[in-house]
């Protein structure tokens, strides 16, 4: 818990809210201002914020958070199929269900710490992934993925006698695609961020940090740490479930690949890249990864030839050959490189980089000020 005042928190929230809501405008010059990508920024921001509550505060590194993401998606789609196309029940259903799921997995996994905890969570997630493809195909629809269909009961909607055809998830009449979908996700991101900030600054958050710092000491200090870590695990599982639900809200289908270990790894990357244990870091990390994924994976050889077209032919071919493996399908290579650079030179993530830059500016200023004073002093002498 940092010693923050209420006023600081309000100011911080105001800045964050403004930044999120104006994203379509200030991301325009970066070529990232289209609804699909904006929705992803918000959704994976929520996912990473939740992951950070567990990893950033308690230090427990879960490699299985994608299980909750997938769980949230399935729950939301089932809510669309069985109840109504309104997103509110879907979101609530997803969050509650993934919370229960997280409580069960956390109860077992949190008996171990360190690498054993990570392996246990990974095992549970892979188990869920494989079960989704095999035993649970009646629920998950296997490889095809869970989709909406005309024959869905949608009990609540039918009573209202709505029009035929496969509808889209809606929020009291507004369809959740395009910018409407983004703003729905953005508002939830802001709420999630607020909750995360309150946790960070509360005694509960401080207790979690103390567990990360010296867990065995917590016992001799009178804390039963298991419920604390479980609470953090469940909260972060619910965040992941919410993110999964929003993925289904903006695109109503759910597949098992969302539960795969690569998805779990991605949120680890986002959090560490942005800065684990910081408030905004994970949101920035999620944004950066999703942005680069979009930009780099969209490049292909023809585009590269265009970029290097100012060069003579052989040189152009040479550069295209070098850069080609890093774009398109191979963009993970770029991501890996960025990640290696960040972890090697900025172990605290992008937030540490920002802090160092800030520190540099402050030092510059304080170096300049004595000069100013000296010049002023000389001037005064002249006048004297």
């Amino acid at each position, binding site marked *: 818990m940092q010693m923050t005042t209420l006023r600081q928190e309000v100011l911080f929230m105001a800045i964050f809210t403004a930044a999120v809501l104006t994203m379509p405008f200030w991301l325009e010059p970066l070529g990232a201002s289209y609804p699909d990508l904006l929705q992803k920024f918000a959704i994976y921001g929520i996912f990473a914020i939740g992951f950070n509550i567990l990893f950033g505060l308690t230090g427990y590194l879960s490699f299985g958070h994608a299980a909750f993401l997938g769980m949230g998606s399935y729950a939301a789609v089932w809510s669309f199929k069985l109840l109504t196309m309104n997103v509110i029940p879907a979101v609530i259903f997803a969050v509650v269900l993934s919370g229960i799921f997280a409580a069960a997995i956390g109860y077992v996994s949190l008996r171990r710490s360190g690498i054993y905890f990570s392996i246990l969570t990974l095992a549970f997630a892979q188990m869920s992934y494989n079960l989704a493809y095999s035993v649970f195909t009646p629920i998950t629809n296997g490889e095809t993925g869970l989709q909406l269909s005309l024959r869905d009961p949608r009990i609540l909607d039918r009573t209202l006698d709505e029009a035929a055809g496969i509808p889209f998830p809606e929020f009291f009449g507004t369809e959740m695609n395009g910018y409407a979908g983004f703003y729905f996700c953005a508002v939830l991101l802001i709420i999630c961020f607020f909750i995360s900030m*309150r946790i960070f600054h*509360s005694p509960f958050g401080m207790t979690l*940090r103390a567990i990360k710092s010296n867990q065995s000491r917590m016992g*001799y200090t009178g804390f039963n740490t298991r419920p604390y870590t479980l609470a953090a695990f469940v909260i972060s599982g619910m965040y992941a479930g919410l993110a999964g639900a929003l993925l289904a809200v903006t695109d109503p289908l759910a597949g098992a690949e969302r539960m795969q270990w690569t998805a779990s790894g991605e949120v680890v990357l986002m959090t560490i890249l942005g800065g684990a244990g910081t408030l905004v870091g994970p949101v920035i990390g999620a944004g950066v990864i999703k942005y680069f994924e979009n930009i780099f994976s969209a490049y292909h050889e023809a585009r590269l030839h265009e970029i290097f077209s100012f060069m003579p032919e052989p040189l152009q071919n040479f550069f295209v050959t070098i850069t080609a493996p890093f774009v398109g399908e191979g963009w993970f290579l770029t991501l890996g490189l960025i990640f290696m650079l960040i972890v090697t030179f900025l172990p605290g993530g992008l937030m540490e980089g920002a802090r160092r830059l800030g520190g540099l500016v402050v030092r510059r200023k304080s170096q300049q000020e004595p000069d100013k004073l000296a010049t002023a002093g000389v001037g005064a002498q002249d006048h004297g």
Partner: protein
Amino acid sequence: MDNAVLHIADVNKSFGGLHALSDIDLQVMEGTTHAIIGPNGAGKSTLLNICIGRLAPDSGAVVFNGEVITGKQPYEINQLGVARVFQTPEIFPDLTLLQNVMIPAFARRDGAFRLNGWQMASHQAEIMGQAEHWLEDVGLIGLRNRFAASLSRGDKRRLELAMGLVQHPRLLLLDEPTAGMSRHDTNATIDLLKKIKARGMTKVIIEHDMHVVFSLADRITVLAQGMIIADGRPDEVRGNPVVQEAYLGGTNP
């Protein structure tokens, strides 16, 4: 003064073939400062580890305040009112000094688990006040916003002392609280511990520094090779030839 807060009853502990503790039977009276001394490897720290639930005895029991605490979790024992200062400082290196002391204060006020996630800053004033009070008493208030990892060993000890004291435990176990401190800081710590004694806190203290032991202790137990070889008032122990043979090196301190 005549009821025992802590009763270590016939405790045995072996590590492999080594008898670390043999039939230790020891009573610590309410409000006293009870020193346990003895050469290295005598079993002093093992005894404290058994008291706080870090180790389980092979046989025997520890009774605190009329309740058997052997077999309880460390956090349960702490919640009953037993706090400990460790031989190698056990602090929270990534938290500030103030937070280091606030953590045990929260444990004292809120119990072993409470989801106080929504507490406003103003409600923390009480806990922060207590933490600042004890940081002041151990002389670290000037460093309150520093990270604990940056402290010297002696300062970490003083910080840990504040972490123990902020809980107002009925029984405070101190494992070499002044090791690594300068003479000046040692004397300041002695004064502080005397002040606490006036408030009726019972203490068990393990110490090598005889200056500290004889300034504080009401009663001294001498351990050697896992056995109690003497037990009594400081003047009795000081004059005991067995003790001088085993520990005090045959010279009158």
